[in-house]
């Protein structure tokens, strides 16, 4: 019994970690290459969810909707980059933060204008809306397994793209010295737009994957963006490997904290005190972890070697 809960929570933690990785990958790309802090990354996550919701309702197929919504979110990212973000690269981080905060206000309001204040639930196809028995006696929702699968596929695809293609070579070169890349005749402006759009697509994918479980709602991006920041701070800002490992660590610790902390607390304090303390501590757990890690390694666990 205890073991089955453990396995299920392990999978849940893994699923949260995968989502966080999809989000932090985009932030890592934009930060690593353009040295740009994008608070509006969560807004792209939300846009992805809303695009997918509408398309699912129109087309009737969730998978088709995802396939169309990913390029749509990338396009939204591309437009944002061309309109606003591009003009901010040479500014300092304070300007990045403020302008993208302004973008959040704009995008949230536009979503409110278009889709209304209510969240939109995404209906899952019958085939995904089931449970599978992964081990004897342990059942897990099929869709959550799909999230893990799709997330890992995206991570693998990203790994191949960055490490084994010409575009990836430019991305890596840009991350270590973008001026030099420009001097060698690479169209930096297009590269930046492309990378930003790629980050947007990854964030959008995360939004599409989570929306059938929660729903597409305004403000979903603002909640998750801070957790994403915690991930990339712990991982070491700009490091893809760090983002991946830290995302899994955070996903697991957050999930385990929320499900088991009260039991752990009950070992050494009264039941009532544990009931009060556990939710507060589990809500703060990942931040406490961040604080502890930063106290020893201000640059994060796996800081990028270049720069």
């Amino acid at each position, binding site marked *: 019994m205890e073991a089955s809960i453990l396995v299920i929570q392990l999978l849940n933690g893994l699923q949260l970690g995968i989502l966080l990785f999809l989000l932090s990958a985009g932030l890592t790309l934009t930060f690593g290459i353009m040295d740009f802090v994008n608070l509006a990354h969560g807004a792209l996550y939300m846009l992805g969810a809303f695009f997918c919701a509408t398309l699912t309702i129109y087309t009737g197929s969730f998978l088709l909707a995802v396939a169309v919504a990913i390029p749509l979110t990338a396009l939204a990212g591309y437009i944002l980059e061309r309109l606003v973000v591009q003009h*901010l690269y040479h500014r300092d981080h304070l300007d990045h*933060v403020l*302008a993208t905060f*302004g973008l959040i206000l704009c995008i949230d*309001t536009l979503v409110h*204008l278009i889709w209304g204040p209510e969240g939109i639930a995404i209906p899952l196809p019958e085939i995904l809306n089931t449970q599978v028995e992964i081990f004897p006696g342990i059942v897990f929702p099929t869709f959550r397994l799909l999230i893990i699968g799709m997330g890992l596929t995206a991570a693998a695809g990203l790994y191949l793209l960055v490490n084994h293609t010409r575009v990836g070579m430019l991305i890596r070169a840009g991350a270590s010295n973008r001026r030099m890349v420009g001097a060698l005749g690479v169209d930096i402006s297009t590269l930046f737009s492309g990378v930003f759009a790629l980050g947007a697509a990854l964030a959008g994918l995360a939004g599409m994957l989570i929306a059938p479980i929660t729903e597409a709602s305004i403000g979903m991006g603002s909640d998750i963006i801070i957790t994403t920041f915690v991930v990339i701070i712990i991982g070491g800002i700009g490091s893809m490997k760090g983002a991946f490992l830290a995302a899994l660590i955070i996903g697991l610790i957050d999930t385990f904290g929320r499900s088991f902390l009260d039991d752990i607390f009950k070992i050494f304090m009264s039941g009532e005190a544990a009931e009060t303390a556990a939710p*507060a501590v589990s809500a703060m757990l990942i931040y*406490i972890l961040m604080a502890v890690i930063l106290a020893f390694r201000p640059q994060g666990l796996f800081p990028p070697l270049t720069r």
Partner: protein
Amino acid sequence: MPEATIGKQHTAVKWISIVMITALAVIPFGLYLAGNAFWLDIFTRLVILAIAACGLNLILGLGGLVSFGHAAYIGLGAYAVGIPVYHSTYGGMDAIASYNGFVHLGLAMAVCALFALVTGIISLRTRGVNFIMITMAFGQMMFYAIVSLETYGGDDGLTIDLRSEFPLITLDNPVTLYIVCYLSLLALVFLLHRISHSRFGLILQGAKFNEERMGAIGVNCYRYQLTAFVLSGLICGYAGFLLGNFTTFISPEMMDWTRSGEIMFMVILGGAAALWGPVIGAVIFIVLEFVLSEITIYWHLYFGLLLIFSVLFMRGGVSGALSRWFNSSRSSGTQRQA
């Protein structure tokens, strides 16, 4: 870069000071006496947020450290009023249960100082983006901590049944409350003026431009920045204490990271480099928020556009633009602006 130091103020600042001091005294009372009591509320909120913005500006404008978690201090200050009042009404936690304003204020200052000290020690070891994100994460940590405290309403917030009790002063009277807030703001602006001219303030500004050089001349910047960080948290905590007494309803929503963004927006909109910048920013923010939200429920869109516009095209905020205009109209061509 002359406009980046608070210490070297233009003569414009004298006039801006006089205008602001008079306007914040005359306008709300004029409207109040004319029968628009509602505007006194708007101005009270405005002055309280101006205090918070000035507090943030101590570290942001003077120290050049972009802290994105200052709403947490406002929330802590407000809950330092709410929680003792809750316990003296419903019992429990005898150690802090009180209606006494000095207890509330003391608690607010103690909690904010402690939180600022602990998070400051860690976050000031980093710079730039890391610092922004870490302060943001710590702020959000307090948000989630308060949300998870079901006793005090959690997500739904907490109604403060009675305002802080002080001898001779009754905060229940809106006029008295406004006067307290107004005088607090004046005292704070004066304090910041003195700080920016002090050794402490000069070291902060020096560290903002070049920490290594400051180190080379024998200054340990970290200590000064940590002190400024704590002081800045205390000021925001005080603003929270006032806000709790003003609204008498507090919720975790007031310490969400987007609130921190709004305070930062005020500072930048008004101009982080100027003494009165944050106050001007708060005035514009609150008045605009009120006017726009009367016209449309989609007013956040205009706010977002204004924010993007002011970042892209208006360096130094409104006060930067004002002093540029002031200088050019006095035909002093010697001071070229960046």
